[in-house]
């Protein structure tokens, strides 16, 4: 294999000297619709199963490989029908899904109702250990296939039933009016029968129904996706293919981009943020992503959670100079947060700048006053916990502490509290061992305001790490989920959010941007709201 590749390269070199443009090195040098684009990648953490992919590297592949009932518009984030012709309900609990005709997988197998139902049943079944299994928790029968303890007592979700090739029904265990809008998430993608028949074979060479098909997959090094010419959707690939190349380090990928060996990077290393504008100019992408960073308080700790402490929590929020930190530390790759959602939702989707009010504006005098009125920082000293192994959190935690210390005129009021590994950090959070505020980030699963509020602040919700609980908040969320249309639901969710502004169970810090860059060889490189490049729209030349 190496010898063959070397020979090919040598032949290509000779060819390149003779002809100006050739299709050597897998399309490099070529232009137009058949040219291949190379893009940076990281080794996915999990096997490439849709219901098992919960991070962005695996998500990149699935975005190219699979299309589901809905897809989030890469620009607006709105959930739009793709395979779904219509999804209808009369009571926000019983849904009928009708598929569009003419869709097949790239191996020729038609995409039917069964392709969806089988895939969802696979994702929900406990023994398949799919990390996204909780996404199916609203479907009837989930507790049988995925019990909290013990072995599952059923293999399939009783709430799913195939009516004919193009129709299936879904019964939910609660009212959930915006549920169809969650169906663009990777976990809800259809799967061909070969996935179940020959699982290892499918993982070695995944087969899907998206604009690209897998040409070859050298695990851990490179995944070659090529345009699927018979793709029936409205978003076909505008290039010949994408080579996803695993990089050991974002700095290395950036160097390769500068040297012209790589066309697209989707993560600019922190160390290069100062130079990237001069290096790449207009080819540097910096746009909002559906990620918000917060400082969560351990509301289970009475020192922080007792009534009256909301003054201290609000005061601390006002002691943080978000403008300065996002400018100096993050070089404008973060935007100061003024609510608990993300700008990618848009005003219609529920993002409301300034909803947090004065509590998210830097005001040292008011901050000092509020903290004093609330009885001061518990124990006179505040620690901000973060994991030290990834993400270079130390810089901004120190800056936040600095800002608080300056506000209070006390050099020892706030210090960072690094935890060695991310796993240990998560374990401490789960075990409720936090004694002060801790770093908390949320990347949305789907662009809905519900996803920014319910999983994080509803009583006993799955990612409610601070164990915040407020009956008023819960009631408003329930009302919002049962609301007949999106506009009313959004208004109710925002009412719930106003409770967060009063109680401040977590301090919104900043909205995170997606960043990326590309070479002069390619055009139309953008990021979707999940900060994944919109690969199919990239053109060459």
């Amino acid at each position, binding site marked *: *294999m*190496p010898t063959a*590749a*070397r020979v090919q390269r040598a032949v290509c070199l000779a060819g390149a000297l003779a002809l100006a443009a050739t299709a050597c090195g897998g399309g490099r040098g070529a232009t137009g619709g058949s040219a291949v684009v190379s893009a940076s990648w990281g*080794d*996915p*953490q*999990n*096997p490439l199963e849709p219901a098992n992919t*919960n*991070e962005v590297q695996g998500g990149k592949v699935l975005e190219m490989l699979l299309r589901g009932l809905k897809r989030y518009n890469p620009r607006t984030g709105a959930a739009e029908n793709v395979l779904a012709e219509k999804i209808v309900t009369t009571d926000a609990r019983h849904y009928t899904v009708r598929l569009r005709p003419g869709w097949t997988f790239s191996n020729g197998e038609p995409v039917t109702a069964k392709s969806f139902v089988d895939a969802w049943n696979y994702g929900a079944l*406990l*023994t398949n*250990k*799919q*990390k996204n*299994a*909780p996404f199916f928790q609203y479907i009837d029968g989930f507790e049988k296939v*995925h019990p*909290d*303890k013990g072995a599952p007592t059923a293999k399939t979700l009783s709430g799913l039933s195939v009516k004919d090739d193009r129709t299936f029904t879904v019964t939910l265990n609660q009212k959930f009016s915006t549920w169809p809008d969650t169906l663009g998430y990777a976990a809800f993608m259809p799967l061909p029968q070969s996935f179940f028949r020959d699982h290892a074979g499918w*993982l070695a060479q995944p087969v899907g129904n998206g604009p690209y098909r897998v040409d070859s997959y*050298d*695990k*851990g*090094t*490179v995944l070659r996706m090529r345009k699927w010419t018979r793709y029936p959707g409205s978003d076909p690939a505008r290039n010949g293919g994408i080579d996803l*190349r*695993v*990089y*050991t*380090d974002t*700095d*290395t*990928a950036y*160097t*390769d981009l*500068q*040297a012209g*060996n790589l066309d697209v990077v989707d993560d600019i290393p922190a160390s290069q943020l100062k130079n990237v504008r001069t290096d790449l100019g207009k080819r540097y992408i910096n746009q909002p992503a559906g990620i918000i960073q917060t400082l969560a308080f351990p509301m289970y700790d009475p020192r922080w959670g007792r009534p009256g402490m909301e003054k201290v929590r609000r005061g601390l929020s006002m002691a943080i100079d978000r403008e300065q930190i996002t400018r100096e530390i993050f070089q404008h790759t973060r935007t100061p947060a003024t609510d608990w959602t993300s700008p990618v939702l848009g005003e219609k989707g529920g993002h409301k700048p300034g909803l947090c009010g004065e509590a998210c504006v830097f005001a040292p005098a008011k901050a000092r006053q509020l903290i004093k009125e609330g009885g001061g920082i518990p124990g006179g000293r505040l620690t901000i916990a973060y994991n030290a*192994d*990834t993400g270079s959190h130390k810089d901004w935690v120190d800056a936040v502490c600095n800002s608080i210390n300056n506000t209070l005129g006390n050099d020892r009021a706030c210090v960072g509290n690094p935890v*060695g*590994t*991310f*796993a*240990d950090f*998560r*374990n401490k*959070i*789960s075990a409720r061992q936090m004694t002060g505020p801790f770093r*908390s*980030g*949320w*990347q949305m699963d789907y662009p809905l305001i519900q996803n920014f509020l319910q*999983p994080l602040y509803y009583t006993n919700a*799955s*990612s*409610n*790490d601070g164990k915040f609980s407020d009956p008023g908040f819960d009631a408003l969320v329930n009302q919002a989920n049962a609301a007949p249309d999106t506009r009313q639901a959004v208004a109710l969710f925002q009412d719930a959010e106003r409770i967060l502004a009063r109680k401040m169970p977590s301090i919104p810090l900043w909205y995170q941007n997606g960043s990326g860059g590309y070479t002069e060889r390619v055009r139309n490189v953008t990021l979707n709201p999940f900060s994944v490049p919109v690969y199919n729209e990239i053109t060459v030349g």
Partner: protein
Amino acid sequence: MGRYVIRRLLQMIPVFIGSTFLIFLMVYALGDPVAAMFGERAPDPATAAQIRHDLYLDQPLWKQYPHYMGQIFQGNFGIAFNGRPVTELMAAAFPVTLRLTLIAVVIEMVVGIALGVFSGLRRGRSIDTTVLVLTLIVVSVPTFVSGYLLQFVFGVKLEWAAPTVAFETPLNEMLLPGLVLALVSLAYVTRLTRTSIAENARADYIRTAVAKGLPRRRVITRHLLRNSLIPVVTFIGTDIGALMGGAIVTERIFNIHGVGFQLYQGILRQNSPTVVGFVTILVLVFLIANLLVDLLYAVLDPRIRYA
């Protein structure tokens, strides 16, 4: 000789068990790796419990270790968290790192010993001082600085070499990372050789050899160099092990998907099967390299005999 080798091999068994146990202990002391698999999200308890069960993590540590070792002796190093068998990762990573190490060792032997002999024979002269200062600089510059610097100068600016290594790891693209990896050791080899040569040059047997009227070339290669190489061989022997495991920085800079990369990623993701498996193999490499070094002593110095 044979009995000596057998004794040494037997001594390796407790060292091997002890060191793997320590690694196992340290990796698992880092905490429950399952919590990190779910990103920022709190893990679903039922799924997490199922994963723990399948990875044998729900057993106490004193049961886990014998279970793991039992599997290793059947050639089963477990499954990495991304679903690939660890042996598959090893088969991909070790040949790459071995190539890189060999390139580095050849560079440090050829250049290091040559420079060492050169300056050792001219002790105190300006050429000797220059070599000493240069090696001091090289030793004090960390690998990631020299790595990024050489990569930027030769890879991006001058375009003499590829800034990153292609996945097929062709030899010509491995030269630059090999040089970066070799740099610090090269300086040590130079200094060790120089000191050793300078000392032995005044030994009685050298004077005898010169007095016998042997040609200078023969005196240096057969008598001086051979006797001066013992500390250098010791260093290179242990260095092979260090280079195989310690190429983490170099491999990251040049995008080489070898042992260092797998270890780094394994540690970052707390992927215990990968880390313990790779380190276990590295322990073996260290032990065998050390044994070979000891046997080489006898070849270099006839006065050393193993019963």
